[in-house]
């Protein structure tokens, strides 16, 4: 496309190629060996992202389409859709997460071994999307599990999923093993198990996990009719 969307929100992922100041700093801090090890580690992980074979709704079809001949997610080494969460590295939440389903989703997420990543694919997974007015629809999967990459669209094209996967690879390549900005899975204080909500009498309880998600301050436009 001629112009990139302004929403792409260029994230400061350090590129693997050019040695940036941050890399130099990292080198100085960690020493050559650890940095090289880190790069090897990140290279391996970023090139071997096995998604969980887990489809929720419409977006799952586009996710399957991304694995088919035309788009071929295999080129990125990510075609091994594992049916068991124990062997998966990436959870693509593809579709509407309902309140009845979210306990299972969180449980699946808990069953995945670290390091694990989550892509919220499509409007429904991000925010409830078109169905956010529904009483049984969760308004965004990030209320309960941490999401690394959001891909909007309803559903996003398979190319958009590939693009999201590449963004995730970039993010993985920029992760550090030590230091203040160490990756989440290397820190002991980061949660590895997330609270599983229960289905209550009127709603799920709780409605969000405060450890994962806090509602942002609203824009303050109260008063419009």
């Amino acid at each position, binding site marked *: 496309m*001629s112009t990139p969307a302004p*929403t792409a*929100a260029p994230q400061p992922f350090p590129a693997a190629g050019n040695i940036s100041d941050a890399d130099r700093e990292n080198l100085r801090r960690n020493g050559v060996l650890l940095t090289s090890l880190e790069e090897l580690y990140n290279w391996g992980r970023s090139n071997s992202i096995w998604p969980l074979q887990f489809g929720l709704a419409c977006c799952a079809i586009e996710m399957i389409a991304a694995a088919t001949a035309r788009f071929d997610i295999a080129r990125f080494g990510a075609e091994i859709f594992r049916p068991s969460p124990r062997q998966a590295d990436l959870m693509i939440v593809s579709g509407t997460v309902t309140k009845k389903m979210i306990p299972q989703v969180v449980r699946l997420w808990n069953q995945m071994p670290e390091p694990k990543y989550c892509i919220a694919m499509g409007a429904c997974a*991000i925010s409830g999307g078109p169905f956010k007015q529904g009483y049984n629809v969760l308004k965004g999967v990030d209320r309960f599990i941490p999401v690394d990459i959001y891909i*909007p669209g309803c559903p996003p094209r398979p190319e958009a999923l590939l693009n999201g996967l590449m963004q995730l690879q970039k993010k993985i390549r920029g992760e550090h093993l030590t230091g203040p900005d160490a990756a989440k899975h290397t820190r002991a204080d980061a949660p590895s198990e997330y609270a599983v909500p229960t289905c209550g009498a009127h709603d799920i309880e709780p409605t969000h996990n405060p450890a994962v998600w806090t509602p942002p301050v609203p824009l303050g436009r109260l008063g419009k009719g």
Partner: protein
Amino acid sequence: MLGSGILKGLAVTAKNFAGSFYDPERMATVQYPEERAPLGEHYRSFPLLVCENAADPLGTLRCVACTICEKECPPQCIYIEKSKDKKPDATGKPQLYPVIFTIDTAVCMGCGICAELCPFDSIKMDKVFEVTATNRFTGLLLERDQLAKSNAYYHSIRPAEAAEVDARLAAERLAAEEKAKAAALAKAAAAAAKAAAAPPTTPPSAA
């Protein structure tokens, strides 16, 4: 005989295997980031706001904050606040304009109803689909200045439709100008007639 069906199946896959090396019909992969399949003529991803002038996108928005799209949007992902004052629009007519125009792409379902119903040809569907974000509140909430795209850009993504819109707008503008001219002429004529008939005592109410 037992096994003949299996052998036939093996033959078909073998054919596909061989075909994947020389037959573009069979080798279907488009290697995405480097190669791209052309998007469909009417492909739509997220809405954009057309402005006349890329240099001053917010000043030349076609949008007049009529809030039809806000009301008709099925998932309610558009938020508009009207201005208090009026600014001349593309045709020079003073119009309201949106002070705030927000579209949440995290909610948008890309149905295109807003573009279909917009009477001012202001909201149109973009073709950009490579959108990712790491935060849905800062990354996917599009404000007025992010939504505004120039008419030239609109021409670049949908030439036929944009040309049609331009022609229609030009015709409307022409009609409006003519109307204004005619009105001015009529006014002048009337004034002249009035002036001719009697010295004016009251200011013309037709103004």
